[in-house]
């Protein structure tokens, strides 16, 4: 079992990694908001390229699911996080070392960086040995780490580091500070004067009092007087400081590349788990979806839009979940119904689910089965642009043409309100033409439209409708329900009110 990476199963997979540009559909699906939220605060790891590279390979998806599942165990997660924290500390020390001038100051920051690294490695080795890991990725990593932690290279680095740390911490000296001079020498047996003072006045003590010690920790760097004092101290303890200089020269490239890559890549999982944990805490369901690059049967139950839910939870507003399924020959969901009823959100959810599933991540929903597409295309309304000098209708047509040129039967196409800038009959005719193309393509598609007759065009199309509350049609439920587009949404919501819908009856009647 050779370990390549905690993210990539094989060396070839890794080669595809370095994508710097977000896919075109990111903004339309609000995936940009989602990935921004996931990677917020983790900029140092440069995680976005990982989120720009979906996979069609079910084995890669499974590899990541397994790693993610292991990391959901709190014990392992804490261990990996403390490793990350030590590694972050190490980088902080190194960057500080590079900014300082005095050679013994630089050297000490460097020594402490290596020390943190050694501790991080040996602790992770110990922790993983005890951890209950099942993922192929973690099993291979554990093996690699174990071998590394026992290698001569690492053990001698660690021994050398600890010795030097111990020697430096044994250094004590006395300074005698007068008005214009400072004298440095070794200590004799002078006693601690503060304890004398405290003892003298202890008899008055009635209870605890506040402390008056000034905190000097905000000045971590040495000034030029302290630099001189440090030079004197080095003269008092010459062997130790000679050793320190030699150590720095010898250990410039101490860090192992595979471990530093692990430190970065494992953050992909941790950041994602952090993000979805806010949903879980709010009681929203998250699942590992089934995925396929062969069968286009897809479904999701109790799913929701991550980006919207993120905002709603922050505002304390409840999140509405929706279901969908396509099976057999069904490929296309036509979404119609009242405005502001959650149609666009539904379409985005569909796109988000498919994209995030292809990253090997858990998705929003109680359960889901999703398609690993070759590409996701979106067609959302754009502001009229002066650049291309085309009319809106023309622009719609040009863009959909481009999409249909590039899309394959493995693609997912999400269209939102096309042809709104022409007459109803025109729009209907154009939409039907586009639909015919997509039906022939056999791609998966969600089409949000007011042209509800599209729903009955073919056995590949199904109709879903956004609904309103029956007692007050102005109140939106944000529920999108699979049903014929014939204005029955109102009746359905009345049934909902009396808990007589299918779902509610199921709940009431029990298993």
């Amino acid at each position, binding site marked *: 079992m050779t370990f390549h990476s905690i993210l990539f199963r094989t060396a070839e997979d890794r080669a595809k990694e370095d994508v710097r540009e977000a896919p075109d559909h990111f903004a339309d699906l609000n995936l940009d908001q989602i990935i921004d939220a996931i990677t917020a605060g983790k900029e140092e790891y440069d995680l976005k390229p990982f989120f720009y590279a979906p996979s069609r390979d079910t084995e890669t998806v499974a590899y990541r699911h397994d790693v993610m599942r292991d990391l959901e165990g709190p014990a392992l997660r804490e261990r990996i996080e403390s490793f990350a924290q030590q590694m972050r500390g190490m980088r902080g020390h190194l960057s500080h070392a590079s900014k300082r001038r005095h050679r013994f100051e630089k050297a000490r920051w460097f020594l402490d960086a290596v020390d943190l690294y050694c501790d991080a490695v040996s602790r992770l080795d110990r922790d993983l040995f005890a951890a209950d890991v099942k993922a192929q990725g973690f099993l291979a990593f554990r093996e690699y780490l174990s071998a590394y932690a026992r290698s001569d290279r690492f053990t001698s680095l660690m021994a050398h580091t600890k010795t030097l740390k111990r020697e430096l911490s044994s250094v004590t000296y006395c*300074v*005698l500070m007068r008005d214009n001079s400072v004298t440095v*020498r070794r*200590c004799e047996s*002078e006693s601690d004067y503060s304890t004398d003072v405290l003892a*003298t006045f202890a008899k008055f003590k009635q209870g605890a009092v506040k402390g008056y*010690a000034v905190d*000097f920790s905000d000045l971590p760097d*040495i000034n030029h007087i302290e630099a001189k004092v440090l030079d004197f101290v080095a*003269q008092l303890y010459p062997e130790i400081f000679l050793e320190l200089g030699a150590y720095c020269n010898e250990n410039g490239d101490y860090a192992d590349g595979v471990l530093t890559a692990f430190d970065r890549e494992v953050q992909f999982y941790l950041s994602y788990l952090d993000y979805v944990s806010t949903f879980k805490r709010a009681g929203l369901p998250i699942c590992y979806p089934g995925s396929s690059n062969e069968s286009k049967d897809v479904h999701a139950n109790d799913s929701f839009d991550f980006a919207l839910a993120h905002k709603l939870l922050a505002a304390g507003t409840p999140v509405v979940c929706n279901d969908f399924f396509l099976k057999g020959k069904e490929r296309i969901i036509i979404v119609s119904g009242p405005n502001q009823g959650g149609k666009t959100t539904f379409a985005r959810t569909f796109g988000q689910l498919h994209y995030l599933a292809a990253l090997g991540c858990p998705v929003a929903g109680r359960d889901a089965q999703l398609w690993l597409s070759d590409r996701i295309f979106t067609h959302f309304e754009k502001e009229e642009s002066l650049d291309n000098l085309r009319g809106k209708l023309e622009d719609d047509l040009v863009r959909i043409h481009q999409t249909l040129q590039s899309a394959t039967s493995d693609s997912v196409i999400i269209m939102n309100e096309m042809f709104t800038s022409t007459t109803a009959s025109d729009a209907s005719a154009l939409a039907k033409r586009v639909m015919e193309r997509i039906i022939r393509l056999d791609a998966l598609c969600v089409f949000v439209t007011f042209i509800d007759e599209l729903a009955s065009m073919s056995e590949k199309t199904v109709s879903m409708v956004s609904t309103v509350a029956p007692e007050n049609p102005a109140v939106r439920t944000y529920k999108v329900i699979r049903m014929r587009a014939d204005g029955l949404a109102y009746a359905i919501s009345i049934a909902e009110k009396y808990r007589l819908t299918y779902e509610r009856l199921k709940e009431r009647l029990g298993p």
Partner: protein
Amino acid sequence: MKAFLMHKTRDLDLEEQVPANEPELTQDLELNTLYEAMALGDKVVFEVAKHTLLTGLTDRAEILYRQTVLRDCLNNSAAVRELYDIAAQAIEDEKKHYWGFGSKYPSSILRRAVDLLEMFMASLKRLRNVAEQHTGAFASDGFATLFTMLRRELSDEYFAIVQSHLNRLAFRDGVLASATLGTGNKGTGYVLRKPLERKQSWAERMFAGKPPAFTLYIHPRDEGGARALSEMRDRGINLVADALAQSTDHILNFFSMLRTELAFYIGCVNLHERLAKKGEPICFPVPLEHIDRRHSFRALYDICLSLSMEQRVVGNDLTADNKDFVMITGANRGGKSTFLRSIGLSQLMMQSGMFVPAESFCANICDGVFTHYKREEDAAMESGKLDEELGRMSGIIDNMTANPMLLFNESFAATNEREGSEIARQIVCALLERRVKIFFVTHLYELAHGFFDRNLENAIFLRAERQADRKRTFKLIEGEPLQTSYGEDLYARIFGADASGAPCSPPA
């Protein structure tokens, strides 16, 4: 160092919870009048007196302990005032004279601490001198312990040690500190060291050889260097400045403690002087265990009433031994409310360790005094008056202690006599079965006479006295409740004799 004047083995704890019915007690017994007479404008005395009266002692020995300390104070008031003034002055000086300790520089913190200590030492010396002068004149355990402690802990040797510290902390020979290497090899963990005293002979010094030492001189024009050096000095003295500043806080707290412990007695001395000037009697009460039922006194007067008028006030006598229930009826403006207040006040005063306003006084201890007085109608009140009364009663029951005393003043009169009497009867009966001690002032004839007819062994009935010429004596006598409260008399006095009809005759 502890004073232990208020309790034999612990400090007075001002954080101790005052009873929940503190606002009612204060209003009904007019406690603020008492506090003000004790405090004479001193806020600390006011607060401590208030706290002490509200959190009375329930242990006889503790009450007697305070009584002996208080006797000492009454006999040596000048010396006690001197002690109090020394403590108060030290605290005031600390506040007034010195800028705060909020400095970022240990050297400033240290300088302030040294200044403060010098001032405190002078005050401590004065304390010790008072203790030395007056030791023989005090008889109580409390003061004996305090004076012994002051003389032992504040010896001349001790002051010499403190002075040597203060001299050393001027750092005439520079600051000597040890340090270790911290982050980035920066000096850290500075600890101020006491230089070794060289006792070697001349020859030893010659041969011992000097350990290596390196000295850096800072150029007079190197301002950055001078700043850096002074920062390093600050690090060196950081811990000792902390220690010394904390020590000044300890001493300040010592003075605060002493002032708090003395404040109550100062209040008592003030009050005593005021009453003595008027010729009002006082006595040290005899407390009995809470299971006993005694309430016997001679010439008990309402101290708050006395404090608010020039002439002396009328006192009452009572012998109510083995009684749980004292019911007071009788003439309007006949002194019933005053009597009831004197009962409440004397109980609180006795249990705080004070003297009481009477010629003699003996009562059992209660662990709570509750008052239920008729209230003015409140304009903002949403509920009716009886609602309000019953609500307050329910609140009393919620907070009631194991062995309380309840003072009712014209309670449950907000409805007709029959209903009011019935409500009150049920409440009183229930309370008596729990052996609650009750004083009940009422005009409710049905209530009063109903209890009278039951010939309860543990009840006594008092009546505001009225002489034949309709003059009130403000004295209460033991007697059967009468059906009128002589409102006619009041009417007659206000409207003149012509307006009066024949007074109702008491029932046969």
